[in-house]
């Protein structure tokens, strides 16, 4: 590949991933409201366009038109920085996700992934943990006790659950032997989904993913019943929109990561029997991945509208006293199994 075509190809990939991320996040807001409504025997938004399909547009217009309020006692620079960081880090995570196998055009391979970092998992963790800075800074800069409490909660929750999440991934890395997401996805062809080998790790990872994205039942940073709006109490207009939007992007990326780590990524069992053309396989792979992602986004919402919020001490107990020991146990069990089945050599 020449430098020029490489640049064009990477540019297209970046733009496509960015656009799709934003699109999915936009329609997640619509899906959230519809699913919430349906789970509660309501209809949900149905005025903007058929079935309310234009509701996200209406929301966006509303967000942009609203008055922009910056509290006079706030730290203005940090106040603006908060939502920007949240949005930026949320958009950064899509880089290492393998969206499908490679496309072959004119004998050249075009992997459907922006970049295949050999330490993809570490990159992912690094960026995700940066995301809490947006919430922390935003909460602190608002100069409001509710926001501050929200920010503090967000940071301590993030720290607690990152440990368990990392430990659950270590067991996964032990079985896959790779830190590259592409490698992990490629290994799970057919029925060799990692959830079969790592059920406990998968469960821990999903629980931690809920906590990392600040979704219910772990949405303590915004916790409207005690903290008004939590870290975004003082925010209005599109800055508030950024915070909310970042949450939906995080949810989308988390679903993509869960699917890639544990549920076979773009792989689908048996599809190789009917489709042989690699390009078609790649396209179908994208479709499968998005089906899985949609399911997990639905799952995120389903859980949100079923479970009540944890109390703060329960959250900490669950994180430190249950999930961390469990994930260490998971590592030990994985190690033993690998040792005795001889896959360790």
């Amino acid at each position, binding site marked *: 590949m020449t430098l020029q075509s490489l640049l064009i190809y990477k540019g297209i990939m970046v733009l496509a991933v960015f656009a799709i991320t934003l699109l999915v996040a936009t329609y997640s807001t619509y899906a959230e409201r519809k*699913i919430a409504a*349906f*789970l*509660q*025997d*309501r*209809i949900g938004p*149905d005025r903007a366009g058929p079935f309310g399909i234009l509701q996200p547009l209406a929301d966006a217009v509303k967000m942009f038109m609203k008055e922009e309020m910056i509290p006079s006692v706030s730290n203005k620079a940090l106040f603006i920085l908060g939502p920007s960081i949240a949005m930026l880090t949320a958009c950064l995570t899509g880089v290492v996700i393998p969206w499908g196998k490679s496309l072959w055009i004119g004998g050249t391979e075009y992997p459907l992934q922006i970049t295949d970092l050999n330490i993809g998992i570490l990159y992912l963790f690094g960026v995700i943990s940066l995301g809490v800075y947006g919430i922390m800074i935003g909460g602190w800069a608002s100069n409001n006790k509710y926001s501050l409490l929200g920010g503090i909660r967000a940071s301590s929750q993030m720290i607690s659950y990152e440990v368990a999440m990392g430990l659950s991934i270590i067991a996964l890395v032990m079985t896959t032997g790779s830190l590259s997401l592409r490698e992990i996805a490629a290994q799970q062809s057919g029925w060799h989904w990692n959830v079969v080998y790592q059920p406990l790790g998968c469960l821990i990872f999903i629980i931690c993913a809920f906590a990392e994205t600040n979704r219910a039942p772990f949405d303590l940073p915004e916790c409207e019943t005690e903290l008004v709006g939590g870290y975004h109490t003082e925010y209005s207009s599109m800055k508030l929109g950024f915070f909310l939007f970042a949450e939906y992007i995080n949810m989308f990326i988390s679903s993509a990561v869960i699917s890639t780590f544990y549920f076979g990524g773009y792989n689908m069992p048996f599809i190789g029997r009917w489709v042989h053309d690699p390009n078609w396989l790649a396209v179908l792979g994208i479709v499968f991945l998005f089906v899985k992602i949609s399911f997990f986004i639905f799952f995120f919402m*389903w*859980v949100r*509208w*079923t*479970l009540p919020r944890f109390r703060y001490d329960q959250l900490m107990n669950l994180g430190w006293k249950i999930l961390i020991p469990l994930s260490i146990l998971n590592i030990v069990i994985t190690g033993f199994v690998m040792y005795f089945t001889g896959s360790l050599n």
Partner: protein
Amino acid sequence: MQLTNRSKVVSKKEMTFVERMYLPAIFSGMMITFSHFFRKKPTIKYPEQTREFSGVFRGQHVLKRDENGAERCTACGLCAVACPAEAITMTAAEREPGEEHLYREEKYAAKYEINMLRCIFCGDCEEACPKEAIFLTDRKVDTMYNRGALVFGKDILVESLENPIDLSKRQTPEVKEFKKQKGYQHNETHDLNTRTEMDPKNPRPVQKKKLGNS
């Protein structure tokens, strides 16, 4: 004393291991919410669909006219006394000669006001009225931009000559029969749901017409 056997004794026993795992409980909870996903929604999409009112819905009041188009109210004040919300006020006046076609009785209400913000639509005024003058109808009270506008005067309350208000929904034969037994015979001279068509220039009965929602 135990009235029903629905009360539950709270027990604070230790949870079993399975219960402490919470996962089965979470799973069953999620199944419950999921089953609601496909339920029929009870939503009524308001501007397009309207909820059907019960036949005895009590809405905005009307001051009825009699079969000659004269106002029935005699400003006796019984409705104001009966009103638990003290929503009704009125000023009485004496009928002048030549006004017989306007007012049925010798005394009439020159001013008659109901404060719709105070009214609780209990219907006691209707029950108290000895002249079958005031009724609650199936019309909703309009929303207004200020409080003053919600004190309805005679201009709104008295039914117009051209558009008599139909009361047949609530004043069914059974209701009238019931009223009779309660001593309302004084007004049983005519059927409330028929009214004489009036010629505004010549206030003399021309023809009888069955009132409807037209």
